[in-house]
């Protein structure tokens, strides 16, 4: 988006009854890095996240806890979801809840428009209903009964026979959109990414779409169907609409025109809802389809088989308490190719923290600041004549800015980081080769020492700017130490190398301190 057009990015809205875990945090961090990057590059940026709060289960847990479903959701948003965003330093511009009036009212508006346009019809829904669960069960949820229920299908949870129930439902004519969707995927190959997810979805749609039941009568914690308030809107239909109701659909046309269409970051398991149902709904309503649906991979625990290892039930603070939020963000963005499944382990996290953040980047910043302090009293020296090595640093500095930006454009966050790390490695190599500590011993080489430290400071500042979307805390600290002018987040990212300093550096504590119990030799966790 180097053209300065708007960048509207979303995460899925999280089911409010879930417990936040590393998987949620991963999606949030990736979206946040993209949002911060675009924001700092000067693109008008809007980053939306939120919670999905309707449905039978929420009603049931709320009742069990003696509160209304809205009070229950309020509690979870406050005690679980907002704290998650703080734990991992998320910079969302908006937080939509499906119980917001702006959402509920405009879901109804959307539905009414679809109804008026003839895309909704009345039909009968037949399914196996479990009174214990109070919901329709899929065939896979049923098992063969035993004992008194021999020969009947029973609910796997309650072990009681299910009833075949029929209810009047409203259906969305999704089947009308089989061909228009295939045309969309064909004409806009980037609409679904990565390629593996795209292929899977095309194959699915090619088999033909069926109409979608979009209302339920069996419970009432949801958005009421506008022309028939004995029905509530199917939760997925309701949830998907958050992306437009948050953006002004139905109540702020100017805002909606400015923000829409969005880039949706989702886990690949729900890519189908976003790349099939959602664009079909939008087409039916005459609204532009999303800019892109990107299905990222799963986190796997190191060394385990695929089938067993979708194990992300770990609370993010288990990691941030020890390593900090920057390390969490950096690790998951650099260690895993965004879009593919990625394996992670505590040992890998520890090793990369030490090698890349502490020894690679943090140590570089500390050394450069310390040398300017020692040799020039903290005043960043003016450069003398450049040599080839200095030019090489400057060339790489410019190139990695372009490379990283191009990678972010492709949502290849890991590639952006590996480009930026070329500059980390280059600067570390440059300092080793130039040996400023040796130059400092020879007064006749003062000019050379000035050039080397000037070049190094410029490079470190460029790194700070480039890394600020990924590790905002450490780069904010470094920015202070470099005497950076203004807020680091205001420095235009695509010309990071033009960053400005007031000319003086300040002492810098280690950005990524040593973690004592990393090798399992120390005492309890650092938090104690």
């Amino acid at each position, binding site marked *: 988006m180097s053209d300065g057009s708007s960048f509207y990015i979303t995460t899925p809205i999280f089911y409010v009854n879930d*417990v936040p*875990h590393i998987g949620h945090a991963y999606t949030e961090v990736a979206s946040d890095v993209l949002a911060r990057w675009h924001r700092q590059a000067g693109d008008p940026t809007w980053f939306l996240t939120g919670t999905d709060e309707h449905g039978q289960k929420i009603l049931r847990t709320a009742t*069990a*806890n003696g509160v209304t479903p809205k009070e229950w959701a309020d509690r979870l948003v406050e005690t679980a979801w907002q704290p998650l965003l703080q734990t991992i330093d998320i910079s969302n511009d908006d937080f939509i809840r499906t119980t917001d009036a702006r959402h509920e009212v405009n879901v109804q508006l959307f539905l009414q428009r679809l109804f008026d346009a003839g895309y909704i019809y009345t039909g009968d829904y037949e399914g196996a209903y479990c009174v214990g669960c109070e919901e329709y069960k899929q065939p896979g949820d049923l098992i063969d009964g035993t004992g008194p229920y021999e020969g009947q299908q029973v609910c*796997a*949870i*309650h072990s009681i026979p299910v009833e075949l129930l029929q209810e009047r439902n409203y259906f969305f004519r999704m089947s009308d959109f089989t061909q228009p969707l295939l045309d969309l995927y064909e004409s806009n190959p980037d609409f679904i990414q990565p390629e593996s997810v795209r292929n899977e979805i095309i194959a699915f749609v090619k088999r033909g779409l069926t109409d979608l039941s979009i209302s339920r009568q069996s419970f009432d914690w949801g958005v009421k169907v506008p022309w028939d308030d004995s029905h509530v809107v199917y939760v997925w239909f309701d949830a998907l609409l958050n992306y437009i109701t948050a953006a002004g659909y139905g109540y702020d046309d100017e805002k909606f025109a400015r923000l829409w269409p969005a880039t949706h970051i989702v886990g690949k398991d729900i890519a189908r809802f976003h790349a099939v149902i959602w664009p079909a709904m939008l087409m039916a309503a005459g609204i532009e389809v999303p800019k892109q649906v990107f299905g990222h991979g799963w986190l796997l*625990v*190191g*060394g*385990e088989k695929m089938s067993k*290892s979708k*194990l992300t*039930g*770990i*609370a993010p603070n*288990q*990691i941030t308490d*020890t390593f900090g939020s920057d390390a969490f963000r950096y690790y998951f963005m650099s260690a895993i190719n965004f879009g593919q499944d990625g394996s*992670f*382990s*505590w*040992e890998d996290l*520890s090793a990369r923290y030490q090698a890349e953040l502490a020894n690679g980047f943090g140590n570089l910043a500390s050394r450069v600041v310390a040398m300017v302090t020692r040799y020039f009293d903290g005043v960043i020296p003016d450069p003398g004549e450049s040599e080839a090595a200095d030019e090489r640093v400057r060339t790489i500095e410019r190139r990695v800015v372009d490379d990283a930006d191009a990678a972010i454009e492709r949502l290849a966050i890991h590639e952006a980081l590996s480009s930026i790390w070329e500059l980390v490695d280059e600067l570390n190599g440059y300092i080793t080769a130039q040996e400023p500590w040796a130059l400092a011993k020879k007064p006749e080489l003062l000019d050379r020492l000035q050039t080397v430290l000037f070049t190094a400071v410029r490079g470190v500042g460029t790194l700070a700017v480039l890394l600020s979307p990924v590790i905002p805390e450490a780069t904010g600290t470094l920015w202070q130490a470099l005497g950076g002018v203004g807020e680091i987040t205001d420095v235009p990212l695509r010309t990071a190398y033009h960053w400005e300093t007031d000319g003086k550096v300040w002492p810098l504590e280690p950005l990524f301190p040593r973690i004592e*119990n*990393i*090798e*399992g*030799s*120390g*005492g*309890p*966790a650092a938090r*104690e």
Partner: protein
Amino acid sequence: MTDGSPTIRKREPSAGRDLTYPPLPQALTVPVYDNHTHLEVQDGDDSLSYREHLDRASSVGVRGVVQVGGDVETSRWSAEQALREPRMLAAVALHPNEAPVYDEAGTLDDALAVIAELATRPRVAAIGETGLDFFRTSGEKALAAQYRSFEAHIEMAKENNLAMQIHDRDAHSEVIATLKRVGAPERTVFHCFSGDAELARVCAENGWYMSFAGTVTFKNADNLREALAVAPRNLLLVETDAPFLTPVPHRGRPNAPYLIPYTLRAMAEYLGTDASMLAAQITSNTELVYGSWNAEPVVLPSYTD
């Protein structure tokens, strides 16, 4: 019993045991909690106070414990020590083998009333251990008392929104039937999980937690390891049940929370996973079940030796 007395019970001696505490294991990188321990019971040659137990535990990456009572006296002790010790939360209950004893004495209702009051106190995070034990209890009257006590405890857990720790010995199907009949508390833990893969599947379907003790390291415990393999990771917990059930390689010697790394590492090894990631998972689970150990402040002065 008050003033933070170090222990109030002594384990029955049995012949031929090595009564010295094992040495400290290598510390865990990622800390865990011992979600079921009895620090009121003195065992071994050296008497350790709960503070010494917890200091040893801290030094090897065991962040805290749930101290579990089994009768009126030990439940009171647990609730009180939790009020002076930040690394301890309490569970209170009448053990299924104690319920018939109270019943016989005609004091079961009084004892249940004491537990019900303790359940409302700060830093009491669970009702437990309660459940059914057909190994040590038999006879119609005794079993009736056991059922009555179990159901009363389930109600207390639900009323106070507390977790519940279940003692299930040779009574799997009756425990499940009771939970289904009266409705299980939202956070239900099978303490010292003793079932097979089939029971693990039932727990998984119902969202019940499975807490593995040192028994999972025992040579003859293949059924437990099979259960461990099918248990969803987000339902796993780990415990010592100290001073009992010391994990291999120190089986038979006195158990203590600081020995939990053996159990955790054995579980990780059996699952073919990284011990640190398993620990992070289990710690997340533990805090979901009992809340944060810092959620409610300690209010009593700490015990001094």
